[in-house]
């Protein structure tokens, strides 16, 4: 497991095999109910289904912006994991979200995140949330993620 997780290609395959577990193992992701749909090196796709308990504007029936924050933050973090050579945990340093237009009620929100630059200690990501295609963009995000130091051998959960 440790060997597989430190090989980028094997790690991505492992993530693809466990694609449903990637959000099922995260309580707040389970609460918002988003799913990962596609995994490529440095690039992740996901979907946030429309759910009434996530509404932030009852008059318009629109999902709260914070749900998009959750979705894009999480996908960005995962895109770092698919971009790295050796596996490291990452933690969000900052995340900026610009809202282009309100999401439509009762429509799923699609999203993708890309890790476009890595240094030894920081990963830089951008992400998009949209309906159907990228030209119907709801929000864009830009974030920096701290890459944790390698853990001593044997301390990784297997």
């Amino acid at each position, binding site marked *: 497991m440790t060997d597989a997780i430190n090989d980028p290609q094997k790690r991505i395959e492992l993530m693809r095999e466990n694609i449903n577990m990637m959000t099922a*193992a*995260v*309580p*707040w*992701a*389970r*609460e*918002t109910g988003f799913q990962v749909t596609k995994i490529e090196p440095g690039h992740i796709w996901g979907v946030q289904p429309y759910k*009434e*308990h*996530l*509404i*932030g*504007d*009852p*008059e318009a029936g629109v*999902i*709260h*912006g*914070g*749900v998009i*924050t*959750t*979705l894009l*933050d*999480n996908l960005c973090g995962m895109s770092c994991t698919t971009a790295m050579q050796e596996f490291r945990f990452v*933690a*969000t*340093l*900052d*995340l*900026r*979200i*610009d*809202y282009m237009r*309100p999401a439509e009620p009762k429509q799923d929100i699609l999203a993708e995140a890309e890790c476009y630059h890595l240094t030894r200690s920081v990963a830089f990501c951008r992400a998009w949330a949209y309906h159907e295609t990228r030209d119907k963009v709801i929000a864009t995000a830009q974030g920096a993620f701290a890459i944790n130091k390698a853990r001593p051998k044997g301390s990784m*959960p297997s």
Partner: protein
Amino acid sequence: MSRADELQGFLSGVPIVETLGMRCEIKGDDMTAVLPFQDKLIGNFTIKALHGGAIGTFLEMTAMAQLFLEADVERPPRTINITVDYLRQGRAEDLFARATVIKMGRRMASVRAEAWQAERNKPVAALLGHFLLRREDPA
């Protein structure tokens, strides 16, 4: 009805507020938001840390609530953009937040919000947001 009552009335009808389990303690125009800890707010089980998205949602909602409290608007403000700095790990404990309206314009407002746990001067996360104020169109 006081502005605080109007805000509480509005918040009680917002599903995401109930989903998070957050509440607002208001004294006049002074407000502290409280997010009692629940397992569902966790983002990482191995280190028992709050999810950045849950913290971000709570901070955005706190900023909007403070703005609603101070601005003369009927409808809730709409978010233009937010930047959240994650300063410390959010532990499996209650989270608190306060927001300040830095600039109240006619059409837009800038708001800062900060969240903390055991110690007020050790913030867990800070938000800067710009919001669109949806005022009634002047005749």
